[in-house]
């Protein structure tokens, strides 16, 4: 029987499992639902296989090596570290890699990285939105001058990625950027960082937390009586447990998001009915439709839509990695299409082009009301004008440092 094989590099174990499990469930369940409901995509079932990485780069590479031979269509490493290792390998093996909203920001430059996709946004887009949102609160970008903005982050590739952009913005808008790195080992032991924050009294805090780092940070923020409405997390710090760790007192904590909030979507209803209630998933019903779960769903939506697109573009039903790349690179997920698949308004419409693999799509801010996340802003556009040149420069630098970096040989699909 023909299938389209989609390996999912997930982690349900290790220090970051707290975040990883929800993502893994969301990714798995949507694809499983398509298999149940529609018999796959275009009549071909999706073969889903999870490979456990434990957020560990070595194991991630091992997963990649052990699955790529099975005609893998696309990889989602869910770790910036693993992404970095796989970028060169995937480029050589000609298998696209979708790092949705994480990974190497520069990979958005499709001409340099034809095989890597990071729709809907890069970290730099995210960081610029955070600054923009702060400016909005203060009443305009010019009001940022003289403000102090703290940046607390997981001290790894993931958390360091936004720093160049933040520094750029800080010089541009004249605010002071103070960095608070949290070593991976000390994730659950952040009292020093928050003491420093207390002393420095930044006006706002931007947070790039993951795994157990986020709930600990939220708790510490509450403890040190940092004004919670001035703490803004990246979309990966937007988990329900993350905020719940602070309980009532964390009311006002904000985080960016680009995937739907809540379970009020037809497709999610199908998942619940056909997959979860049917006992075909590991999802704990209480965590269904949580922020990170929905994030996982969106990841699979992009995969599924890319498969469909590729099937249309190539006329094949059973695809290869190369076909998949075509599907991803000409992906156009419109509002209509989202509605059609039962996920109206679940995400902002996104379009991938040859040049731009990220799209720089708008994101919104959600706020914790003490019990739940609530949407707290409209879609905010990132500062593409600042981000794009930086991306170009970074891509160029990457190619130079890794010379001889192969030039793009893949034709643009349209």
């Amino acid at each position: 029987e023909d299938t389209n094989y989609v390996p999912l590099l997930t982690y349900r174990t290790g220090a970051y499992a707290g975040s990883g499990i929800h993502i893994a469930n969301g990714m798995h369940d949507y694809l499983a639902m398509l298999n149940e409901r529609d018999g796959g995509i275009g009549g071909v079932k999706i073969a889903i296989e999870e490979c456990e990485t434990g957020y560990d780069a070595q194991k991630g590479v091992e997963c990649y090596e052990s699955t790529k031979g099975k005609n893998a269509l696309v990889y989602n490493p869910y770790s910036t570290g693993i992404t970095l290792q796989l970028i060169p390998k995937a480029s050589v093996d000609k298998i696209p890699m979708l790092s949705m909203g994480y990974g190497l920001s520069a990979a958005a430059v499709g001409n340099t990285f034809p095989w890597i996709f990071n729709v809907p946004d890069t970290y730099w887009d995210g960081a610029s939105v955070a600054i923009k949102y702060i400016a909005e609160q203060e009443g305009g970008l010019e009001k940022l001058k003289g403000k102090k903005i703290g940046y607390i982050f997981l001290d790894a590739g993931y958390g360091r990625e936004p720093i160049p952009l933040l520094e750029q913005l800080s010089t541009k808008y004249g605010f002071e950027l103070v960095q608070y790195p949290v070593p991976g080992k000390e994730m659950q032991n952040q009292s020093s960082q928050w003491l420093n924050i207390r002393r420095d009294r930044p006006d706002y805090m931007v947070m790039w937390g993951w795994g157990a780092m986020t709930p600990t940070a939220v708790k510490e923020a509450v403890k040190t009586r940092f004004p919670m409405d001035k703490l803004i997390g990246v979309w990966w710090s937007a988990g329900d447990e993350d905020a719940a760790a602070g309980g009532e007192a964390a009311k006002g904590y904000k985080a960016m998001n680009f995937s739907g909030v809540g379970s009020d979507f037809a497709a999610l209803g199908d998942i619940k009915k056909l997959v979860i209630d049917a006992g075909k998933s590991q999802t704990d019903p209480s965590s269904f439709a949580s922020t990170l779960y929905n994030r996982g769903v969106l990841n699979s939506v992009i995969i599924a839509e890319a498969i469909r697109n590729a099937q249309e573009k190539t006329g094949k039903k059973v695809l290869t990695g190369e076909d998949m790349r075509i599907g991803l690179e000409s992906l156009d997920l419109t509002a209509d299409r989202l509605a059609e698949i039962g996920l109206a308004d679940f995400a902002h419409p996104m379009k991938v082009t040859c040049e731009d693999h990220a799209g720089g799509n708008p994101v919104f801010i959600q706020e914790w009301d003490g019990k739940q996340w609530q949407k707290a802003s409209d879609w905010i556009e990132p500062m593409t004008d600042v981000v794009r040149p930086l991306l170009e420069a970074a891509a160029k630098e990457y190619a130079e440092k890794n010379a001889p970096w192969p030039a793009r040989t893949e034709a643009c699909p349209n």
Partner: protein
Amino acid sequence: MFYREAGQFKTSYEADQALFPIRQDRIGLAVILLIAFVGIPLTANDFVLTSIMIPFLVFSLSAIGLNILTGFAGQLSLGTGAFMGVGAYAAYKLTSLFPDVNVIVMVLCSGFFSAAIGAVFGLPSLRIKGLYLAVTTLAAQFFLEWCFIRIPWLYNYNASGAIEIPSRDMFGILVTGPEATPLTRYFIVLAITSVIALLMANVLRGRIGRSWMMIRDMDIAAELMGIRPLQTKLLAFAVSSFICGVAGAMMVFFWLSAAEPSSYSIKLSFQILFMVILGGLGSLSGAFMGAAFIWILPVVLKFVPGMLGFDIEAATVEHLTFMIVGALIIFFLIVEPHGFARLWQIGKQKLRVWPFPY
């Protein structure tokens, strides 16, 4: 009776001091080398090469490195990961500073940097012993890890903080970078590992190897017999770190091709320590056996349920793997605290007297 030594007389000290004085062992080694250099390249697929053999060899080499320090010189170290990291970062810096020099030369040179750093952290070993010494090596581990993060010069100011290995060729064949074939990388790693293993086997059976073991077994007596403890220990630290450094550099150059500081974390230190202890402290062949066990077993375990037709979740497999590996470690320690190497010896002993029980 299979393993019969009778009738093999050594007529000179040369013969008696050969690495493998017994014929069966020599044949065994020849077979292993034949498999490694011919058999595996002919049969193995990319997955086996890149995910099993290359890491296995890299780990074997680092296990040899640690074994020299802990198994032979008796200095417990938990800083192996960081020393490997020093090698990796040094090699990376060297290749970017001197892009035209052959990478293999650079990989080997990187060992000198880790040797120097290892010796520095070995200094307290004169006063501090045993488990207490573990803390100085842990200090090395965490401090160096921190350096890898905090000194951007080390990773050429990459935004990601990771080192990425560019493609380099040697005699027209790509040896590093994503386009280098697994086979090429395998051969390089195999060659470096076997050569270093051989050289170390030589050192270990001579005066220097003995002086390490003297320090390990009874440092006071060693000192009263003319061994200078500081020099000897520092040499062990340096040699061990050199080898670990080369292994660390190989790890990123020929296996991972990109590495973050977390690749050289304490977890790696423990992994290597496991290999050394399970393989057998103070045994070179044990280093290989330990590496095989610790690295290959979990990889293989992952496929077992699938092969048996069970449909178990990936995470559950991972949990089970953890439990099984943990239990097996304890099991093997109980069966033979001196590791696989000793187990193998006892096995030989049994073969010798077979079919009688003793």
